[in-house]
């Protein structure tokens, strides 16, 4: 009988907080990985999936220690092994593909030198042989120009290519086990599909075992053989992919599955035919861009080319497109953060000044913007109460007790406990931060909220809860949203109309109900067909490069 490649038995990891308190973050986890098998670790943020994946290299993050159990890789226990022994294994037996490839590469070294570094450290082969092997891997990972891509610098390749290069970096030492730590989370759907395809083929070719950490069931369904569902540092359920997808016993995987199914949405105003059809927000032929203004009066890099759209009161407009399509620039142009070169933004049929500083307070109040990353959108040094309270003071002149009551009301509105107003943003979870971010926009009592990818950084279950909240608030406060996203299912879950952007221009507008099947433009079709489905055969069923654009 052949032993398993990895055997984890009763693993316990403890963290020590800066006040000296000890917290058990992994509470006795056991599972196996056979040779050539890919096991997915699924769970929400904080469930311990990355911590477990790191113990497979015998590593824990600073402040954490493995306090019990064993992690056997090819028969050797990594927990009992000295650090020097583990270092020998890293890169040769077990390798790691991080979430953010952009942060994993040194920006000032050529890609090839970084990819073959592992082979040099362990003296596995001569530099020439390593380069030849790297080129082979580039080819296997379907990278363009495999012969010469290694001579480029990290900023000269795209995000998806960089992620595949980091896989090449992991595979160069010929490991038996590869750990993928949410490698496609930061990518948009059209890129994700290519990266997944490359990973799958190279793993199958090499017959390597793998651990795939993710919170996206649909992605995992494509690449993994088995799924381990984690919550609170414990295994909730374990089984083959098909079984988890279709016959999950535990409530948590079911919740994950439920969060995945988009619920078609129609806003209240849709049925209210008597409501005036005057748009609350209108964008007319906006042209905007970055860089110095050229001789033709246009900026060096044009990000919006004659974009027009309108949003009716009480309705929601979805804006989708891949990174670089100009969707965030549109939000910035509407908010007055990037003054357009030409074109107009009208709020309630009244033209707004191009720059935020030239708009009056009342205009600013009615139009609020919520940013993608709550981490950077909240001042880390100010308490939640201060953050939410500032618009109350600024726009409505509220102070003292009135302000405090309003802050409490806003926290109730976004379903956060009132005691949180004394905390700093760093002490909140991702979902809580995004709620604070939203509460700050609501404090202004706006009519239109520009939501710039607000659910992209959240895991599926939390994102679904935020979307639910947005819908409830819309019913209560008669808001209108411009919802910018690259995730089609969230757009579908909340928007009435959807606008597809590509390369700074609007390529298609259609009602959300017709998203599937109704798209005419080849780019929209590519975008819609790239969304992973909860079906293990989906990835293989999609023809490569659905429509060559």
């Amino acid at each position, binding site marked *: 009988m052949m032993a398993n490649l990895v055997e984890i038995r009763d693993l316990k990891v403890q963290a*020590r*907080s*800066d*006040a*000296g*308190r*000890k917290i058990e973050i992994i509470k006795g986890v056991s599972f196996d990985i056979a040779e050539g098998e890919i096991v997915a670790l699924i769970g929400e943020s904080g469930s311990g999936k990355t911590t477990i994946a790191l113990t497979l290299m015998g590593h824990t993050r600073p402040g954490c220690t493995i306090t019990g159990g064993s992690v056997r890789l090819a028969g050797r226990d990594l927990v009992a092994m000295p650090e020097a022994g583990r270092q020998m294994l890293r890169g040769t037996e077990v390798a790691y593909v991080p979430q953010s490839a952009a942060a994993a590469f040194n920006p000032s070294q050529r890609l090839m030198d970084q990819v073959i570094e592992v082979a040099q450290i362990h003296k596995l082969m001569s530099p020439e042989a390593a380069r030849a092997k790297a080129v082979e891997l580039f080819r296997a990972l379907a990278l363009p120009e495999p012969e010469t891509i290694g001579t480029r610098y990290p900023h000269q390749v795209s995000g998806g290519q960089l992620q595949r290069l980091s896989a090449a970096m992991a595979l160069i030492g010929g490991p038996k086990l590869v750990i993928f730590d949410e490698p496609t989370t930061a990518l948009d759907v059209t890129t994700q599909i290519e990266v997944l395809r490359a990973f799958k083929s190279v793993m199958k070719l090499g017959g390597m075992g793998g651990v795939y950490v993710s919170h996206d069931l649909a992605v995992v369904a494509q690449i993994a053989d088995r799924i381990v569902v984690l919550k609170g540092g414990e295994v909730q359920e374990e089984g083959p992919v098909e079984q988890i997808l279709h016959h999950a016993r535990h409530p948590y995987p079911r919740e994950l599955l439920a969060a995945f199914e988009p619920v078609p949405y129609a806003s209240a105003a849709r049925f209210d035919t008597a409501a005036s059809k005057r748009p609350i927000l209108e964008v007319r032929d906006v042209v905007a861009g970055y860089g110095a203004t050229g001789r033709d009066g246009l900026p060096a890099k044009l990000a919006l080319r004659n974009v027009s759209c309108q949003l009716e009161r009480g309705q929601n407009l979805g804006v989708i497109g891949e990174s670089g399509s100009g969707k965030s620039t549109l939000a910035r142009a509407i*908010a*007055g*953060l990037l003054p357009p070169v030409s074109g107009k933004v009208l709020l309630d049929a009244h033209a707004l000044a191009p720059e*935020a*500083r030239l*708009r009056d*307070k009342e205009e*600013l109040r009615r139009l*609020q*913007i919520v*940013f993608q*990353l709550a981490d*950077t*959108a*909240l*001042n*880390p*040094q*100010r308490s939640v109460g201060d953050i939410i309270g*500032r*618009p109350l003071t*600024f*726009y409505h002149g509220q102070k003292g007790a009135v302000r405090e009551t309003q802050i409490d009301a806003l926290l109730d509105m976004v379903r956060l406990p009132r005691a949180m107003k004394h905390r700093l943003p*760093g*002490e909140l979870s991702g979902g809580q931060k995004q709620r604070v971010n939203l509460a*700050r926009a609501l404090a*202004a009592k706006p009519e239109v909220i520009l939501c710039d990818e607000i659910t992209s950084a959240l895991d599926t279950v939390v994102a679904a809860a935020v979307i639910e909240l947005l819908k409830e608030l819309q019913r209560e406060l008669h808001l209108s949203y411009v919802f910018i996203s690259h995730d089609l299912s969230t757009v579908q879950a909340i928007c009435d109309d959807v606008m597809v952007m590509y390369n700074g221009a609007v390529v298609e507008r259609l009602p959300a109900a017709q998203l599937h099947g109704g798209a005419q433009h080849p780019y929209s079709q590519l975008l819609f067909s790239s969304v992973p489905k909860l079906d293990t055969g989906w990835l293989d069923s999609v023809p490569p490069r659905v429509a060559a654009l």
Partner: protein
Amino acid sequence: MAPMFSKGFLPSPRRFGYHMNAVGLCAAAVVCFWAVVAVVGPMLSPYPPGEIVDFDYYGPMSSTLWMGSDYLGRDIFSRILMGARYTVGISLAAVCLACFSGVVLGMTAAVVGGWLDTGLSRLLDALNSIPSKLFGLVMVAAIGSSIPVLIVLLGVIYTPGAFRFARALAVNINTMDYVTVARARGERTGYLITQEILPNITGPVLADLGLRFVFIVLLLSGLSFLGLGVQPPNADWGSLVRENIGGLPFGAPAVLMPCLAIASLTISVNLLIDNLPVKIRDRSE
């Protein structure tokens, strides 16, 4: 529950929600000691600092003259106690002046940008390009030496550095989304500077203040050593070293003690800013 402390961590400031390591605590103790000496020192001195009390010069340590006597037979212990007031006081005033003006100008330049930023940066770069000791020499020679002149002079010399430092930090913070949100809300420059940017750069700015304090102590000591600092019969520690430099071949305590005082203050300030108290984030106990 048994308290768990790792090596080097002392529990004392924990109840205030901060912890500080042993090196930081020692350094803080030395800095506090010199601060107290600067305030009450002259009241404790056994002899008037200007009075000749010993018939011998460069006298050794004894029970009556704790740190020996200087080149005129004056009590060195009394003179160090008095010098602390000049060294600590002038340097502190100068460093506050330099950091306040540097940080305010730096943040304004970063937030407003455009011509103001370019103008201020070039002006202060020009000032920075003049060697500091030479500039000090010329200015003192032209205006004459007095305590207010020294404070303003040292402040001006160290403003460009503080400006550069604060501007670099503020430029990074200025691109954060929360500053963008505040701009989109329509906030004025004053609010952006004081409420959004300043709280996020205080840590590094304090570290910079400590470092700059050390430079100023050394420059003041240097100027005094050249005879352009505090004027006799008063003396800061730098002047004490210069006065008694002749005692160096004899290993006289008169020259060693002021040196030790300068070293202990500057090294402690440096260690303190490297080990500032850290806020404990986990307050769930």
